[in-house]
């Protein structure tokens, strides 16, 4: 693979990973190469955010996933597709620390000290990661929201958990993020249970992103939503992922969702990865029999 002379200054610009939109470095072409904070996607001197090696998990004697390996770089979204029972949700649970893998390891590039094996982290350290660097978007917004407190408080809680103690600023951040996810700020003081399913899902995304995470786990984020609502959500996620240079692992059984959101794809079957690669390559030129079946079974992806 060709190495690029990417300087550290280009990668770690003032906005890199800060979680705020607008981190683009203007400049167009500079001597034939492009300078932007999206450079982090290029092959170069930067290092993976997460590296997974030979990951395995079993529920008793039933193996849910085995020999899973991949590398995720900053700014990349990895889609994991496969039918129900293929092990994709188990994989996500292992990554997000909800399950302890039975085999293999997960290296995460933790700030500020660099790669750590997640299995060696204490629960306190893992929960700190979830509070400060990670976000989880659940399929069911009820799993990710506090339904009994206002929308604004749902967003603000993440900030308060990080020690923010200025009511006015917390309100401002909540209003900003409601607007980002296209919820009328008039609804800030309403309970999420008065929201539609699509709004609840968008609120969950606002709550997830308000802290400016580096890595977001998404579990069927558009599942159970109407098609038109789904489109809006996908569009939103697509924009935010790009603006915030987020890394993500997206689990979905909908190939169309994967095509819109994921840079790369892993196809899982029976707990194993049967094919992986660029999203459009896997979907347009599937090689494995199962992937071909999956793609040909889909309506217009």
């Amino acid at each position, binding site marked *: 693979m060709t190495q690029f002379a990417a300087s550290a200054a280009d990668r770690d610009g003032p906005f890199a990973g800060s979680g705020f939109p607008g981190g683009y470095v203007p400049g167009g072409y500079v001597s034939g190469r492009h300078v932007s904070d999206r450079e982090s996607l290029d092959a170069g001197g930067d290092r993976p955010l997460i590296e997974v090696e030979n990951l395995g998990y079993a529920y008793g004697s039933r193996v849910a996933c085995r020999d899973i390996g991949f590398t995720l770089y900053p700014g990349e979204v990895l889609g994991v597709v496969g039918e129900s029972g293929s092990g994709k949700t188990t994989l996500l649970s292992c990554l997000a620390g909800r399950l302890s893998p039975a085999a293999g390891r997960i290296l995460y590039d933790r700030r500020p000290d660099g790669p750590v094996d997640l299995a060696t982290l204490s629960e306190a350290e893992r929960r700190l990661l979830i509070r400060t660097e990670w976000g989880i978007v659940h399929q069911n917004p009820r799993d990710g929201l506090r339904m009994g*407190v206002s929308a*604004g*408080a749902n967003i603000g809680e993440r900030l308060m958990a990080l020690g923010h*103690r200025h009511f006015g600023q917390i309100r401002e951040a909540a209003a900003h993020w409601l607007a980002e996810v296209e919820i009328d700020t008039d609804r800030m003081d309403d309970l999420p249970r008065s929201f539609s399913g699509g709004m609840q899902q968008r609120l969950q995304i606002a709550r997830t992103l308000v802290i400016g995470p580096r890595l977001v786990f998404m579990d069927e984020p558009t599942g159970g939503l109407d098609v038109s609502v789904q489109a809006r959500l996908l569009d939103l996620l697509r924009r935010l992922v790009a603006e915030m240079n987020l890394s993500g692992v997206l689990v979905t059984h909908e190939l169309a969702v994967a095509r819109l959101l994921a840079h790369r794809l892993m196809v899982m079957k029976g707990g194993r990865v049967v094919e992986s690669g660029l999203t459009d390559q896997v979907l347009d030129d599937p090689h494995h029999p199962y992937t071909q079946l999956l793609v040909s079974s889909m309506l217009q992806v």
Partner: protein
Amino acid sequence: MTEAGGYNFAYLDEQTKRMIRRAILKAVAVPGYQVPFAGREMPLPYGWGTGGIQVTAAVISGQDVLKVIDQGADDTTNAVSIRRFFARTAGVATTTRTAEATLIQTRHRIPEHPLGEGQILVYQVPIPEPLRWMEPRETETRKMHALSEYGAMHVKLYEDIVHFGRIATSYDYPVRVNGHYIMSPSPIPKFDNPKMDRMPALQLFGAGREKRIYAVPPYTRVESLDFEDHPFEVQRWDEACALCGATDSFLDEVVTDDRGGRMFVCSDTDHCQDRRAGAPAGKEEAAQ
């Protein structure tokens, strides 16, 4: 010990008292941390001070002078019965005067008279877990305490400001003890919260139904949670106490007749009597 009528000193058996004392020692060593203990059945229902009574029974000695208050008053049913309970089972001296007491069991107030070294204040606690309303799972709240994951605690205050324009929580206002654990001060008015901060007396908390003991050792920092732009504030009254004229005590509103007549009087009866005995007459006397 004929008055004990066959009961062991202070009702509880010695093994139980020893167990409770161990829990208290641990609680004092880890300020604000809720220590589980094997609470016993007491001869009164939960919610009537079973936790406080067990703590008092475990620490009381024959030389102690006991004061018991309920909402600040020495003469309400709950206070009277608990005082009589210990007078009978432990034969200790009792008093209504804050300054003379070595051990004070309280429900819902801290006396107005400043407490000093050598005094112990025992609180009756109905719900010891300040995170409970946000997080129903005990396993989860324990983790939240252990890891200082207290974002949820401010959510309640946030919601207050959203709905009432200010922090409307006025009782059981959450505090942070010694810069670490968030603690329920029991349903005392937030008016009393500042008194807990660096109090020279030992503060013990007993929750009978939930079987938890926690403590604030003398001179420990106790901060009430708030926002930078919505700082903690205590209640204030436009009126003075109708009996003693105090303007700096916690006042109860008392309905005096069925024609809408009302007056404000000190909730701390001992404090009020003290002032009336030694100080200028209150409004009521002046009016007569």
